[in-house]
């Protein structure tokens, strides 16, 4: 099964929409800095493992969320691994989110 899984692995986009939950604004600065540092370490570990972070974009002007992060991972399982590391670092307790995964559409942009 694992060989089959690896053979079928396809680069996977991961879209992460987020906004701070209200109590984030009440967290003391030192605690905030420690949390942000832990989350940055998760992002760096993903990039060290080959993931590409296209950027974090501000979308509050036309969306329920504040930012969208766009990532490319080697597979959807790798995207899951990144998200799970953020969950373990308590990120979703402080930020509301909506995530999405997607595969590149063959032929898109050929026209």
């Amino acid at each position, binding site marked *: *099964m694992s060989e089959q*899984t690896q053979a079928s*692995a396809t680069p996977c986009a991961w879209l992460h929409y987020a906004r701070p939950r209200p109590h984030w604004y009440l967290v003391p600065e030192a605690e905030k800095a420690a949390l942000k540092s832990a989350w940055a370490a998760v992002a760096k570990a993903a990039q060290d493992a080959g993931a590409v972070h296209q950027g974090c974009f501000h979308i509050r002007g036309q969306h329920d969320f504040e930012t969208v992060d766009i990532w490319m991972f080697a597979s959807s399982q790798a995207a*899951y691994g990144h998200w799970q590391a953020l969950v373990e670092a308590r990120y979703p*307790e402080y930020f509301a989110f909506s*995530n999405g*995964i997607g*595969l590149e559409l063959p032929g898109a942009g050929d026209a």
Partner: protein
Amino acid sequence: MSALTGDTDVFSAETGGTSRACIVFTGTRQDDLPGIYGRTEHDAVMAVLAELAAEGWVLNQRRVFDPEAENVPVALDTGFTHAHDIAGVFEAPDLDAALQGTIRLEQAGWARLFRTEWMIGLREFAPVFGKGAHADHGWAFMALWEWNDQWGEASRAERDEYDLECDIAFKGDLAHEVNISGRMRLDIAHGWHHLGYWEISGPDVADSAIRGHEEVADFKFTTSRHIVGRIRPLAELAAPRHDDRKASHV
């Protein structure tokens, strides 16, 4: 696979190796005009479902309770109470297979028939059988939910206490002869965090069971969306409204 919360009296983590992926969907028919979806597309969609079954997909949640049950693709007929016409749950060997399978279905003709919300995630908790006769129920109830801001703000102790309160309600569900096919986590690729899928004998059972959840204040920490429907074969739910001959005149 890591569960989002620990085991409770009712629920325990799936055992074994890599978690299976789940594909939750709601679909709204959009084939009002002839020429959009006909017998050709219907047959192609059914062929892809047969391929997916051969590749290890579970297309019928009855199989989660009874491995001997036939893997006939089914979904909930939901048009009578919801804005969407169908809803359902499939399971795939892994996340990549799940994502690619949805694209194969869409390209075979599913995209012509349904405007679909696909929610892809992982199985988290093992199935739980209700008390009494475990008959094959003809209805299903799906609960999507997310932990809200109040849950995020609560202490670990408050959350643990809340989980135990909810367990009281889940035990009540089992007393309603509800079979719960475990719990799926959807947070990796959606705004909903979880899905629960129940086999029930009718919509009244869902209503009665949910009152039990309200009594223990289940919804103080969660926002949820509930879906009820009669289980029917997908071959029927995805039957064409127009034949291919009419389509050729459009």
